[in-house]
């Protein structure tokens, strides 16, 4: 499909000769009112990677991306895309990137087609015919091809999809997406994921920012976790999972029907929190059978007895908030 045709990257004069890093930051720092939103960030993302940039709200993800695409000026440090320094080659960089901003917006008084055509006119390489063809393809891809309404009347989800089409306008080598699943319905999320996989298969480099680990885990092959402006973890998906999954205990939730829970004793129990008829037990193993037997012997009705699996999210949040995240 022409949409994903691989561009050969013109490797002309480079600011920074280096192997196959497509995206790179050097001591990247942004200070707002004395606070470091991004703090001495050093990132390297190889060509063809789908990189998940993970971090809670306010961690500095958007700030980093905005510096990578030249919207904001770093307080300190540099960014490179395909070895071109962003601040010094804004136009060359923009010719090879696609960017989907957080809360993407358009001209509300124009249709999707008109919006995309306006942007496309800034590419010297696209003539009227090519623009028309490309825009048709993209609108079909994001399923907005049959929408004739002006963008001002779009739902957030439709705008987001148009934002994705907009990011692919120039068939970019590097695609930077800032929380791209925001406002998308589940179907839209699945489609986005599939498209990103396809693009990656064609060798595009994808930078995907999100605050949801599960989402990043679905599409990305490498991950960086940012918290308070600093990179706290970096590696492949598996590496990150093992690094983060430090918890050796299981959490068991117990709730009784009528009486308060009596004191439960077991050699594997590490900690119990009693709250009337409810208890949260932290144990070294799954001791649900023992608990159940004990309660039945004491004639206590069991309303609920389940194990709470730590989600990736939990692991991530734990590491970010209780662990290395706090400065």
């Amino acid at each position, binding site marked *: 499909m022409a949409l994903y045709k691989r561009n050969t990257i013109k490797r002309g004069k480079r600011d920074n000769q280096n192997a196959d890093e497509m995206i790179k930051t050097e001591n990247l720092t942004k200070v707002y009112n004395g606070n470091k939103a991004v703090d001495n960030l050093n990132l390297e993302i190889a060509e063809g990677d789908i990189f998940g940039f993970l971090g809670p709200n306010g961690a500095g993800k958007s700030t980093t991306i*905005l510096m990578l695409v030249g919207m904001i000026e770093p307080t300190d440090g540099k960014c490179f895309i395909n070895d071109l320094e962003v601040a010094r080659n804004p136009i060359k960089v923009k010719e090879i990137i696609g960017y989907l901003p957080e809360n993407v917006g358009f*001209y509300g008084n124009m249709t999707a087609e008109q919006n995309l055509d306006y942007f496309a006119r800034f590419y010297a390489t696209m003539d009227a015919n090519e623009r028309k063809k490309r825009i048709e393809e993209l609108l079909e891809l994001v399923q907005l091809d049959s929408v004739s309404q002006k963008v001002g009347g779009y739902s957030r989800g439709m705008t987001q999809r148009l934002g994705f089409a907009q990011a692919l306008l120039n068939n970019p080598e590097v695609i930077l997406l800032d929380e791209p699943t925001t406002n998308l319905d589940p179907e839209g999320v699945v489609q986005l994921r599939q498209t990103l996989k396809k693009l990656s298969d064609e060798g595009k480099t994808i930078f995907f920012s999100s605050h949801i680990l599960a989402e990043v885990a679905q599409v990305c092959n490498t991950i960086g976790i940012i918290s308070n402006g600093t990179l706290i973890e970096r590696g492949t998906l598996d590496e990150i999972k093992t690094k983060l999954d430090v918890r050796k205990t299981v959490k068991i939730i117990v709730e009784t029907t009528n009486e308060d829970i009596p004191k439960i004793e077991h050699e594997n129990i590490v900690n119990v929190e009693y709250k009337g008829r409810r208890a949260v037990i932290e144990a070294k193993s799954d001791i649900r059978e023992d608990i159940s037997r004990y309660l039945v012997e004491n004639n206590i009705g069991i309303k609920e007895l389940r194990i709470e699996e730590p989600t990736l999210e939990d692991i991530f949040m734990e590491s970010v908030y209780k662990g290395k995240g706090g400065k």
Partner: protein
Amino acid sequence: MAGIFVVAKKEFLDHVMGKKFLAILAILMIISLLAMYQGVESYNKQLDSYKGQIAEIEEHPEGMPPGWMPEKPSILFVFQMMSALFGILGAILAIAIGFNLISGEKESGSLKSLLSHPVFRDTIINGKALGGMGALGFAMLVMTLLSIGILMMLGIMPTGDEFVRILVFMGFTLLFMFSFFAIALMCSTIAKNSTRAITYTLVIFIVISFVMPIAGTFVGMQLAGDMPEFSGVRVEIQETNESGDISKEEQIEEQERIQEERQEEMQEYWKKVMGIQEMFSIADPLSNFNKVSAAVLNPRFQSFRGFFGPMGEPPAETSILEALGIVWKNLLVLLLFPVVMFAIAYIRFMRMDIR
């Protein structure tokens, strides 16, 4: 370089097809229609009385004072009546289309989308300035054609000189509108959002065009010292002055001398006040526009209360070039003002963080 026209064309079309622009242009057209209708009516009256006077002179040349000729009314009179209103409405139109040019795109998020494509920031702001000025030019063109059309429909054909003056006046109105467009664009670039941008713009408008000139007069009157007493009442000339050594004639002469001195003092005083007032309104596009349009629209223009010009020349026909020569400093301000405002907007936009 082609990019600037892509931006300018979009901006121009957005403006001239936008409700805001069309609504204000419609108001401008209605008001100037009314003003022209009134103006033409009183022009016709003046013309009738002028024709009557001419006829009388021809019939009884001996009954008229020697050398006296009635003044032929000029159709420019109509535009003189309109010019103040025109200026204010023009400023409002310029502000209305300019105040959210950058802030609006920041709010909608379209600026980030736009800037992620290979377009220089200066292309965007230059294109926006060009498109906006084009739209204002379009509005002025419509107004010019409309007003000349109305005149012709009413059977009034401006003379060549009048025609030139009307066009020059329209051109300066446009220049004046650019000043406010540039203020609005500057505020739109600097302010966090459009609400603030419009607030800043209006505050600047009111301060430089109304507060400063009034404050200038006030400060001028304070600094110029006491206002000379004006004695409109002549001291009774004593009819019976037998013993005194001053004759009646001498008394009258003395009176006249005092009167003259007083007048001179008064003139000195107002000259001082106006001088100070001028300094306060030196950067005010409205004052400068009023001054320039007075010069363009009045064939007998002289700068009595000139901002910079010489005082009290005898009234005579001034050609349009002479008139412009007198107000060249005001013209310069009208030219420089938008340039400076735009430069601020430009510098700010080039470096600002967009998020």
